[in-house]
């Protein structure tokens, strides 16, 4: 990546705003934004390698894990809260939008600069500031990678419970913004259940702390409203999280089925037996074959579906639950139920699950991952409906998902170079999401609304709901400087949202 290498002499010039811009276009931080002069980037508090503004540099930041695009004008890499605050103050003077970004692994376009502006990447704020094993708390900067925290906590027998598939690259700041989940959230809850306090930079640059290390801060639950607000209310610069104690025993089972319906019925029945597995994941036949070719996890290629189930806790509890799961699976005609004999076998099974999205990349040039969530008893009928919708549009739709909590991830495989295919993929996806809502579900279980599902929000929310959400948004972010164009449908969002012509937005299906 090209860095904007500033010479010491140039750095001096940058401070003298009046002369720097035109005279030193090559190496100065004077930048144009939306065609207007944006002013000077204050290199005196950010190092010279901390700002990108050349087109060939910023273009690398116009994607995240979604199918959307949105190019920032400037990308900055602050290292301290103070720097974030200064950037926000400076940007605010120019009324420019600000988008926070972690690792950019998000799947809903949350970390994209939909209307351009300044992107604050938290990659260099990646320190674990404190780890308190006795109180089971850690304080981290937003750029800490999810898995790194669990690694650091491991010597104390502790770990950070939320475990998105991208946990080896996604950041905790991103997890907080999206209220990320993962396979093990069935028993342990999502990110919001593990965050007790935050340090924020508000859109006017003010630094505030909300919540408290122990939790139960008096007054309204500001931490609760901020986690999952997708960067639209404030920038999070420090996070206090709960650490969980590793269980004494873990059993991982693979139940293999000849029909998707049987697998789905098994999920419903496991819960009916008062068992809450730590994880309960399903891969349908399409998916497991692709994964098997890629990972060799031992999934039988001729099966219709597999369930990956994990139970954790006291050795006594785990043994009984594993027995019960085997009984339930057999009652629903499981062809075979395997128990991982050791850690190596367990890791191989999980490798199959966590690398599935990567493996699917081999099937089609592109894929679109949905995130609908339904009441889990509606699983069998919803899976049938997804098959019908796929067949009607002529797509292969793979299913790999958190079956235990009804969080579906249908994956539509398509070729983005074929404009018609893309449109059809989006239409099929919208139909699936509509069906999820019809059976009592919601648009997204863990990926967020971002810019990909904002136009579908009216499926669930009324004008009164949007008005209230809008007022809550404005209580934090009145000028709509933070992550504009997200969550709210464009017609109900900030008044001034305009999609830039340079960042073509695909025409999205809408709720109506």
């Amino acid at each position, binding site marked *: 990546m090209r860095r904007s290498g500033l010479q010491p002499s140039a750095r001096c010039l940058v401070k003298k705003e009046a002369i720097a811009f035109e005279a030193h276009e090559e190496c100065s931080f004077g930048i144009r934004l939306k065609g207007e002069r944006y002013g000077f980037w204050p290199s005196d508090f950010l190092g010279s390698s901390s700002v990108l503004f050349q087109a060939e540099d910023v273009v690398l930041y116009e994607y995240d894990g979604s199918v959307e695009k949105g190019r920032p004008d400037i990308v900055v890499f602050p290292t301290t809260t103070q720097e974030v605050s200064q950037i926000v103050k400076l940007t605010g003077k120019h009324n420019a939008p600000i988008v926070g970004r972690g690792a950019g692994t998000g799947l809903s376009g949350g970390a994209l600069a939909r209307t351009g502006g300044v992107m604050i990447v938290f990659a260099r704020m990646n320190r674990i500031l404190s780890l308190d094993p006795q109180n089971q708390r850690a304080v981290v900067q937003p750029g800490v990678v999810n898995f790194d925290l669990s690694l650091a906590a491991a010597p104390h027998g502790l770990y950070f419970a939320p475990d998105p598939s991208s946990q080896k690259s996604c950041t905790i700041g991103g997890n907080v913004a999206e209220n990320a989940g993962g396979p093990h959230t069935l028993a342990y809850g999502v990110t919001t259940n593990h965050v007790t306090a935050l340090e924020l930079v508000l859109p006017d640059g003010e630094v505030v702390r909300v919540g408290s290390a122990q939790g139960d801060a008096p007054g309204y639950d500001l931490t609760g409203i901020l986690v999952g607000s997708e960067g639209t209310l404030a920038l999070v610069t420090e996070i206090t999280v709960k650490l969980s104690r590793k269980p004494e025993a873990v059993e991982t089972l693979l139940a293999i089925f000849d029909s998707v319906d049987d697998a789905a019925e098994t999920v419903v029945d496991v819960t009916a037996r008062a068992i809450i597995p730590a994880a309960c994941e399903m891969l349908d036949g399409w998916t497991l074959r692709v994964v098997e070719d890629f990972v060799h996890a031992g999934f039988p290629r001729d099966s219709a579906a597999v369930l990956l189930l994990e139970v954790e806790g006291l050795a006594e509890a785990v043994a009984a639950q594993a027995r019960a799961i085997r009984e339930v699976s057999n009652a629903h005609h499981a062809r075979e139920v395997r128990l991982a004999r050791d850690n190596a076998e367990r890791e191989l099974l999980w490798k199959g699950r966590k690398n599935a999205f990567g493996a699917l990349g081999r099937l089609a040039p592109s894929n679109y991952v949905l995130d609908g969530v339904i009441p889990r008893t509606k699983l069998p009928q919803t899976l049938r409906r997804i098959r019908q919708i796929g067949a009607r549009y002529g797509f292969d739709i793979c299913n790999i998902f958190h079956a235990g909590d009804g969080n579906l991830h249908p994956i539509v495989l398509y070729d983005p170079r074929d404009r018609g295919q893309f449109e059809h993929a989006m239409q099929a996806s919208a139909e699936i999401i509509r069906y999820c809502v019809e059976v*009592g579900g919601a648009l997204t279980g863990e990926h967020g609304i971002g810019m990909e599902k904002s136009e579908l929000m009216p499926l669930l929310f009324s004008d009164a709901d949007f008005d209230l959400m809008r007022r809550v948004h404005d209580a934090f972010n009145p000028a709509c400087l933070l992550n504009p164009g997200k969550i709210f449908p464009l017609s109900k969002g900030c008044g001034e949202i305009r999609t830039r012509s340079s960042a073509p937005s695909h025409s999205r299906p809408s709720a109506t």
Partner: protein
Amino acid sequence: MTSAMSNFASRLESAIGVSHVSADPSVCSEYVVDELTPSAVAKPASAGEVAEIVRFAALEKLSLIPCGHRTKLQIGMPPSRYDVALDMTALDQIAHYDPGDLTVSVDAGANFNDLAAPLYQQKQFLPLSVPFYFESTIGGIIASGVDSSLRHSYGTARDFLIGAEFVDGTGRLCKSGGRVVKNVTGYDLHKLLIGSLGTLAVITRLNFRTFPAAPSRRGFVVSFPAPENALAFGHLVEKSPLAPASIDVVSPQLLQLFLEAEKNSPEPPAAPLQGKFPGDSWHLCGSIEGTSEVCDRASSEFTRIAALPEAKHSQLITLNETEGADLWHYLGQSVPLLLEACSEAAVFKIAILPSRLAPLLTRACGVVYFALLPQAGEYTRPDHVHRLAKPTLSVFSLCASENAYATLPWCPTQLKREVNVWGLDFVAPASGRPASGSALLGATPPVPLPNLALMRGLKAAFDPQNVFAQGRFLG
């Protein structure tokens, strides 16, 4: 009653029906909050009627306080204005219960017990056996933000409230979340309603994740000469492979209160607590849920921990489900028992990191001792109230110095005129929490509420005209 008020009552009557509104002083007197009596009581029969009443109130610039069975209305500051009590108990239906999905959706005015019964039939439950739960509405439980000792394993309402419907201050029916256990669609507005004391919106319906009931449970009571021994033991249990459902520490005085409750109980106890525990000890009460194998394992773990040299205990008693039922009931209902024994009790809620708990407890007990105040279980005379203010401020200061938050959910109205029950000053601008190393009994000015501006902003977003519960939280 002013003529404007009676006018309001009659117009409200015409809008939502005579049977739903009362301005009868004897009815209104049942809805007193901190010595303030409303001028009218409205009892809407639907969410639509709630919205209509709120729109009325907004138009007439009246102050509404929503309520259920009014068991926890003393939480919060005295209202600065209170025109209409909004009695929500007519909205009492279970809207959806889907045992297979482990979700339930219930009207705010439903009794907790009426909800618990159908859940129990499906071997499920909601871990919200909070103080007064047996006569509480579900909306009241959420709005008052109280919790139970089961929070240790199940979390608080913020961990299992998955959606809500409510009427905002503009009189419109709004919602957030949904009826699925995992959902990130839109802002989690329902989390703001927990503990909001009716200051943001009128809750009309709540959606919860339910939990499978454990097949059995077992209780363990370990007695110690001093509180720090009990807390240290609790830490050893935390570090063990056990995942206790609850851990409570009980003072000698509180245990005395339990024994008296047992003595006064109309029904004979299934397994008397009397004589089981050393009277001058502190007790750690831990409960374990699971299969009988899990409970047996817990027994051996507790015995193992108790045998460690650092476990300075005097006795360990194991209670099966029947033997422990009364003790855990009393534990959950400590606050009602305390208030019954001493109507002028000041009950704090202190949120602190476990490692800081022992020193705080010692110093807080010191405050009470030096103030010559009776402790839990000792009866008080009415003239004690005026002596509560200084030690209350001392406890607030102590907590601030330990980086803990103390609030005063239960205390006499008279005390609220001298101290802010939130333990925080709402007037000073938020400027962080100064570490106050104040001496015992040295009443220092309260610490400013952090994020006052943000909280005021949220209040204005939900309730732009300040219709709801004026004065109870932010003034």
